[in-house]
């Protein structure tokens, strides 16, 4: 008797989650991680290039060019001001031509990159601006080429800022991957939408949100630790 009550009391909070198909959760988590990993990879590559170019074209920098800076700047601003959900729908034809589909996990990656890369590029530009101009000047005086200065001075000196920028972008991408569920992008967001919202499954909703929260926490903590490890100022 006593045993049974204790068992009931102990099981009660868990019974709420007892109907969850953990397989589905596991699969969705994997999809989210997959989308995050690939979109972050391409975002960092493209955004870094774009950010460096933006910085170099800006006033007083190595490749100062007002026209090109203005042009790139407008493109970046436009992409950044379109809400992600709308951007996703807008670029569907483009998505289809490069990955062969505009839905599912694969179809989610191009819009994620197109949305996040300009955002990341601005963060890169800002981090590079933080680098002491004197150090760039010293390298120029030593006979370093512009390429060397970017590689060995700018990126190196801005590294903590860049790591922080990658962290922020990764966290932003997590929420974008969740939104991509709207067009059947898969992942935890998709799960939350299909079960949690359309079938009123509060339990699934809570679990997915908790998992997303844990993911963001891990990303942020890892980013902060790396910044600390690389900080020399």
């Amino acid at each position, binding site marked *: 008797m006593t045993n049974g009550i204790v068992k009931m009391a102990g099981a009660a909070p868990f019974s709420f989650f007892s109907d969850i198909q953990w397989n589905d959760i596991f699969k969705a988590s994997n999809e989210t991680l997959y989308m995050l990993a690939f979109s972050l990879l391409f975002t960092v590559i493209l955004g870094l290039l774009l950010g460096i170019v933006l910085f170099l074209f800006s006033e007083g920098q190595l490749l100062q060019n007002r026209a090109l800076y203005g042009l790139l700047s407008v493109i970046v601003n436009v992409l950044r001001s379109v809400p992600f959900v709308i951007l996703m729908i807008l670029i569907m034809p483009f998505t289809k031509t490069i990955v062969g589909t505009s839905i599912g996990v694969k179809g989610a990656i191009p819009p994620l990159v197109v949305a996040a890369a300009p955002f990341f590029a601005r963060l890169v530009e800002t981090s590079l601006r933080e680098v*002491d101009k*004197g*150090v760039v*000047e*010293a*390298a*120029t*005086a*030593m*006979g*370093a*080429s512009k390429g*060397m200065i970017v590689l*060995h*001075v700018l990126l*190196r*000196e801005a*590294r903590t800022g860049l790591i922080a920028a990658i962290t922020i972008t990764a966290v932003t991408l997590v929420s974008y991957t969740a939104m991509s569920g709207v067009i059947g992008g898969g992942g935890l967001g998709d799960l939350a939408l299909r079960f949690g919202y359309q079938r009123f499954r509060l339990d699934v909703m809570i679990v997915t949100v908790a998992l997303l929260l844990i993911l963001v926490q891990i990303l942020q903590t890892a980013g902060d630790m790396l910044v600390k490890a*690389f900080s*020399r*100022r």
Partner: protein
Amino acid sequence: MIDLIDIEKVYQTGKKSSFIALRGINLKVEKGEIFGVIGRSGAGKSTLLRSVNLLERPTGGTVIVGGDKLTELTEKALQEKRKRIGMIFQHFNLLTTATVRENIAFPLRIAKLGGSRIKPRVDELLELVGLTAYQHHYPKQLSGGQKQRVGIARALANDPEVLLCDEATSALDPQTTDSILSLLKEINRRMGITILLITHEMGVIRAVCDRVAVMDHGRIVESGTVLDVFLSPRDSVTREFVSEVSDAFGSEAIDAYRAQGRMVRIHFRGGQTYEPVLYETVRRTDATFAILQGTVSKMKDVPYGQLIVELRGSDGEVDRIIEELGQQGLEVSRL
């Protein structure tokens, strides 16, 4: 070694306004000498120094360093040439993310030296600037003087023929300034590197320079050996700088004095500074003298002295004394 010919620099400050920072600068720095440029803030010193390695490209004129016309080199050739022109900065400009060792190795890596040749060279440079014990420290863990030593080692890494110093000691306290200046002097003496430095402190010029140019409003208003410029400044700006140095010759003490005899100023240079030239000369006459003011000091390594003396005696005797002092190589001017 450095030849600046008719250098002009005009900054476009707005659509229609411009500012002339350098006006027709002509300057020749000989191989192996330490040349100083002094001037007030805004005189154009940094602009001048930075036009030597074309960090700031002059809008007119020719820059020649070690026989190469820098102003006519291609981007690539200029980069090569810059490897042989070292530069140090007021704010050191070290890589904050690199250790002392990595900072010194940086120009060697830029010059694409192999790792096996970098290591011994860096060891040598660390030794030279006395930072071997600090090689794994980061710049933020160093004092200003130590940071400037790293800057010097870095500038010397590729065996430059010329070292440019932009206010290298202006951010340092007096003792540290002295130690950095001695290091520069030693480098100049041991390796024969030509040094061009700019400063707004006469003390720096006096401590290390062989020759000096005084700048004002984008022009060189006076130049010559440090001793000449120091002992007989012609331009008012030069006079101001000279009077800043502690043992300069104020005239307050003798302004109010009404001399009975004739007052003269005598300059001694080099070995004569320590000889009893004045006494010996006056002793041969019936005249006497009173010393009203005097200084003996050193300009870099050259001793010099200045005396203000009142000669008392007949006109003929005083004239003879002045003439004889002149014949012995002293500079005598009547006050």
